């Protein structure tokens, strides 16, 4: 039976003083409670586990693998293992000795047989432009090489007599390399291993990163500027009217991205509707039609339109909870409409502003489709360069490094969002 220990009046009760409470089966209650809690925790965990596993396998692991690829590039050491081994002994001061050349010649023969020389050639070519053909032709002639290999190779192509190329090869032979991240910020290591800027005409990525942040900032600003009044109007109208107007906000939200992008092409292109209207109204000349698409303007207009609902909805849900009496109280205490709005209303909407701004910025920074279709040359964002490296140049490690930088940016913003707004407070529709 359960007994009650009575600490208040020790000695009076006949029951054992420190006997714990027990359940019907005699186990102490504390233990029983812990058991029940553990079971509840286990049940909750088991409910979440399948999805967590699913997301880990289909989503987190692939992204993790991509990040590994951004600093792990073992092509060289896999295709040319003997050269890699031999290069470890080389101090880099002068041309490598015969042993390295011999190992290289051996590796070339294997690479020729396995048809893998192209991969290495591409890999070294990133860092030493123009070396591609030297590799492929050396592999082709590799069966004809005889000792001393050093002379034979240099005779085949002068470039094998360049210390710089061997220095680049030594660096490429290391599987783990910061090279791609350096390249993603327009830096490179020179032949002596110092970090330097790349040539002026090849400095693009920092510009692209800054442009991405700038465009995302402009779009976020526009979304806030356009979204705030609409959210304010929707929140202050009677429910019936605001529900009707809400359709105008929600319909774009539910409409396919490509439909909206197509619509903007129809509207903005030089033979498009807006230009036609302006010409018809004699506002512009027929041969000075405005170029509003396939440039930054196109990206900004189309993306603002696409992301605007994402700023209106969080603002609306916050504004809905603000009692209108506060503003009236401010007015009756003598505030001008502007003061009442600026000092009383706006501070209360800050959570909505934070949610809307962060959400739009996060989405804008990683946008790909719309800039690719309407951005032209100068409206491209960093995502477009990731796609370029994935599909055209096939420099996958570079794509992964750019992806890593973008991901880091997003993660910081996501953390901020979680901190300020809380991801579980995000509402849809």
């Amino acid at each position: 039976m359960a007994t009650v220990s009575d600490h208040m009046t020790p000695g009076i009760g006949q029951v054992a003083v420190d006997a714990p409470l027990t359940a019907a089966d005699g186990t102490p209650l504390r233990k029983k409670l812990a058991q029940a809690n553990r079971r509840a925790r286990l049940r909750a965990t088991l409910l979440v586990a399948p999805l967590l596993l699913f997301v880990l396998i289909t989503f987190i692991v692939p992204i993790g693998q991509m990040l590994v690829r951004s600093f792990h590039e073992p092509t060289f050491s896999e295709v040319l293992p003997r050269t890699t081994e031999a290069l470890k002994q080389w101090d880099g001061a002068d041309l490598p000795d015969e042993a390295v050349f011999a190992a290289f010649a051996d590796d070339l023969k294997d690479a020729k047989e396995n048809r893998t020389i192209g991969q290495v050639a591409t890999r070294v070519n990133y860092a030493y432009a123009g070396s591609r053909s030297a590799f492929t032709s050396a592999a082709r002639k590799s069966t004809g090489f005889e000792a001393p290999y050093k002379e034979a190779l240099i005779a085949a192509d002068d470039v094998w007599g360049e210390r710089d190329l061997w220095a680049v090869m030594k660096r490429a032979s290391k599987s783990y390399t910061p090279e791609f991240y350096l390249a993603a910020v327009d830096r490179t290591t020179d032949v002596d291993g110092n970090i330097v800027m790349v040539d002026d005409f090849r400095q693009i990525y920092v510009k692209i990163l800054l442009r991405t942040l700038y465009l995302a900032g402009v779009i976020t600003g526009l979304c806030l500027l356009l979204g705030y009044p609409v959210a304010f109007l929707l929140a202050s109208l009677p429910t019936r009217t605001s529900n009707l107007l809400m359709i105008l906000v929600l319909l774009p939200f539910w409409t396919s991205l490509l439909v909206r992008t197509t619509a903007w092409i129809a509207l903005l292109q030089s033979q498009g509707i807006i230009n036609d209207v302006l010409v018809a109204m004699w506002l512009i000349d027929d041969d000075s039609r405005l170029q509003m698409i396939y440039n930054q303007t196109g990206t900004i207009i189309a993306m603002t339109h696409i992301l605007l609902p994402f700023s209106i909805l969080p603002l609306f849900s916050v504004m809905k909870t603000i009692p209108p009496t506060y503003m009236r109280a401010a007015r009756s205490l003598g505030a001008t409409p502007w003061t009442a709005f600026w000092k009383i209303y706006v501070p209360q909407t800050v959570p909505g502003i934070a949610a809307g701004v962060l959400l739009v910025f996060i989405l804008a920074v990683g946008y790909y489709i719309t800039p690719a279709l309407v951005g032209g040359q100068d409206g491209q964002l960093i995502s477009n360069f990731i796609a370029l490296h994935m599909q055209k140049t096939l420099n996958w490690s570079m794509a992964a490094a750019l992806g890593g930088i973008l991901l880091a940016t997003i993660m910081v913003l996501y953390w901020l969002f979680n901190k300020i707004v809380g991801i579980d407070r995000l509402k849809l529709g």
Partner: protein
Amino acid sequence: MSLPSYAGPLEKTWYYAFRVICGLILIFLIVPIIIVVPLSFNAEPYFTFTPGMLSFDPEAYSLRWYEDILRNGMAAPDAPHSWAWFTDLWNNAQWIRAMRNSFFIGISATIIATILGTLAALGLSRREMPYRALITSILISPMIVPVIITATGMFFFYASVGLASTYLGVILAHAALGIPFVIITVTATLTGFDQSLIRAANNLGADQTTTFFKVIMPLILPGMISGALFAFVTSFDEVVVVLFLADIEQRTIPRQMWSGIREQISPTILAVATILVIISIGLLTTVELLRRRSERLRGVTPS
């Protein structure tokens, strides 16, 4: 918010100016979506209104681009409308195939996302769940991480396990992208869910399964369905993952539109866009009705 009687002339002007500004912003939001509808009936291969269309000349309007949706890719589009014509249409027409792919991939991904997502939301809404904040942010992350990064990562991983250029690969990827929406909507329905109902059911002798299907499920069903719709739309509208993971065999509608816009832009795209707009109106209506029903069921007064 009506205009107070003590408003001065400046305030009055601003009141109406404000409404005009809001009206203009709302027009900015809706016009691009409405505009594609009349344009898709253009008789000419232009992306703008022809003078004939503006004077409502019936000659200037046609259904040729809708016909084009069907004919594109068919072996013998002019054959009589027999059984052979229909099989030709079903198997060869590019847009029809894209549509079949879109629905197949979308529905499969939605089923996976909804089942796993609902279970997880049930777990996450329990107070006992350990590391709830961390796990929630992991499960929501597919919505936050830019699709280009997701697609890049998946491209390498799925290729290494032999899932690239397969339906399964695209379905799994789309399911991962749809999961956050299911979690968010189901969790939203579960806040304010009266946990004592479960205890009452248990008390009355119902086991776990009965409790779930007879008590919990009817209450969270609206959230589940709108989550499922979000997940479906996510998949239905997704291009980047399809671009990276899918082959010509798995082309979906957005993928087909993507190459249409990039390669030879014709008003067929506008006809497809019009159909998609009609689908999205249907989806929006369904979600709105579900939301109201859910609010009624849970006794939350509509705000």
